[in-house]
């Protein structure tokens, strides 16, 4: 129905350290369509944040994008110069992070920090930009915008700062908003406010959102499409309803079953045994095989490809490959 806005094609981002090469993003491919919210989920160290940083080319040494292409709106970002990339960031691609306090400049007022991208990218005069900044502060639901614009970050609460971050990210009307754990540091009642705000602004502005989170509840609520990552790879992707109704990869199934859900209390929680493998010591096996209850012989020796199972549901698991696993029960 709509065009592809972002396409990751076989992206490899590795960190070369003394302890070995950490393959944080290891052959990742997926798409984000215009106006779509794509949730990228996974546990710590699965590479979801590094995937976003690779898109923005903010990966710092010893990290390096070794291979692949990242297409954004018809351009391969990995072929752009630093200046061209800077023109995109904060303009066509907005971003918000987990800790708003550490992403804002403590010695500038929040108004000045919204003015900055407006002057830089939209070439507004200082006066116009200030008026627009105040308008944005109001738009993100903060009362007394004139006064708040003149406040410094330390004078505001975490919830308000995240609203300011959203204003900065969206004031230049980007096509894509990257939200990396935007509500993880917030209390649950404030999280509800911020998620509501994001939904409302998305309705108004129509940008696509790449939502990175570990919280399955947030994904269920916000996303249209979900990408599940494990140990630097995409192991499953599907539209949100489909993924929650019929998760296919044993890891996704385990993840959904191990989260306690309010109102659906069980006697005992399901838990995935073991822990995430060391990213520097990944072999040719399926990276999940040591923790998998359905592990077969081939899983120990060969990696399963990410293949379409059904219309839009993709999964990387030998169980769904013809001639290996049982057809799903």
């Amino acid at each position, binding site marked *: 129905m709509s065009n592809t806005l972002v396409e990751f094609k076989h992206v490899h981002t590795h960190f070369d350290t003394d302890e070995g090469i950490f393959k944080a993003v290891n052959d990742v491919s997926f798409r984000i369509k215009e106006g779509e919210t794509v949730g990228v989920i996974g546990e710590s160290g699965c590479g979801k944040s590094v995937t976003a940083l690779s898109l923005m080319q903010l990966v710092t040494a010893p990290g390096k994008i070794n291979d692949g292409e990242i297409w954004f709106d018809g351009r391969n970002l990995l072929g752009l110069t630093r200046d061209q990339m800077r023109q995109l960031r904060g303009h066509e691609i907005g971003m918000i992070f987990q800790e708003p306090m550490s992403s804002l400049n403590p010695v500038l007022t929040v108004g000045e920090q919204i003015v900055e991208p407006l002057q830089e990218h939209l070439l507004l005069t200082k006066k116009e930009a200030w008026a627009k900044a105040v308008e944005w502060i109001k738009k993100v639901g903060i009362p007394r915008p004139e006064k708040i614009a003149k406040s410094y970050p330390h004078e505001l609460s975490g919830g308000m700062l995240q609203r300011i971050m959203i204003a900065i990210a969206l004031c230049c009307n980007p096509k894509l908003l990257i939200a990396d754990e935007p509500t993880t540091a917030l209390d*649950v009642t404030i999280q509800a406010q911020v998620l509501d705000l994001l939904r409302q602004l998305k309705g108004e502005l129509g940008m696509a959102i790449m939502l990175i989170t570990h919280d399955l509840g947030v994904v269920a609520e916000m996303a249209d499409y979900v990408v599940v990552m494990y140990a630097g790879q995409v192991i499953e992707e599907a539209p949100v309803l489909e993924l929650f109704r019929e998760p296919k990869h044993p890891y996704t199934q385990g993840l959904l079953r191990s989260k306690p859900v309010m109102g659906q209390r069980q006697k005992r929680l399901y838990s995935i045994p073991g822990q995430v493998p060391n990213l520097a010591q990944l072999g040719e096996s399926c990276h999940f095989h040591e923790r998998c209850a359905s592990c077969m012989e081939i899983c120990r020796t060969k990696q399963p490809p990410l293949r379409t199972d059904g219309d839009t549901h993709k999964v990387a698991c030998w169980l769904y490959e013809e001639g290996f696993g049982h057809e799903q029960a």
Partner: protein
Amino acid sequence: MSKHDSKNDKEILLDVRHLKKYYPITGGIFGRTVGHVKAVDDISFTIRRGETFGLVGESGSGKSTTGKTILRLTPKTEGEIIYKGVDLDSLSKQELREYRPSMQFIFQNPYHSLNPRQRIGDAIGEALLDHGMATPAEIREKVLEVLSLCGLSSYHYDRFPHEFSGGQRQRIGIARAIILNPDFVIADEPVSALDVSIQAQIINLLSDLQEERGLTYLFISHDLSVVEHVSDRIGVMYLGSLVEMATRDELFAQPLHPYTKALLSAVPIPDPTLKRERIVLTGDIPSPADPPTGCKFHTRCPYVTPHCRMEVPAYRDVGGGHYVACHII
């Protein structure tokens, strides 16, 4: 308060009565006390032997301070803490020491409470020596027993804290607490720093230990789904006060306080098909240094009346041990 709890006649292990903890705010050049942060402001509850009492609330609600004050890790301002029928205040330092092994604490991030240069076997066994509960010769054997109980292996004995993952460190934290054979354990956000799949492992470990050893827990968490899973009874805190307390089933099926209702409705549920009526609270949590007059929740309450701004609502039993502090109930 205990005399009202007739439904369950199990022995009351801990009785907290009108507990207050105020931190002074100093100002001026002479460091005079100019006010107080009322971190815990007159709360009362009881915990029976063998049960898990969950304490939920957002940041700044005073739930952690409550835990620390009960164990006398920080001195209380006022109130009584009666443990096994003995007022802990009436004990001398020496007598209190004898009670210490029976009350233990599990922290959110055990890494911060482990000495990086001490082998974890020694770290776990240390307390046994301190309290004269084992001779140096017996220590190794006792530590190994607890290690295996907590899902760790004997070769972990001689390792250092940095060699462990987050989940394993939490197992160490738990091993350290239970080696003294306590009756009562306060777990302060024990799974909040962990990934979902590891979270489930630790929650299951805690409930296994409870079953085997008849432990009583005070489980402090901001995560309502986790609290629902582990608790028998639950208290909800807001700005230093208990606003509601009930059995788990009652609290989730029939929350009475407007804050509890909002809190429950704000939790994202991992089910994209679910359509819920959400109560979104406006505004931020006020500062505990300058709490609102009357009912502390009135600034954010959707049902606020003029009366709420003037008078503090009484915390009372509305039937069957369901306590609530609200004028409109």
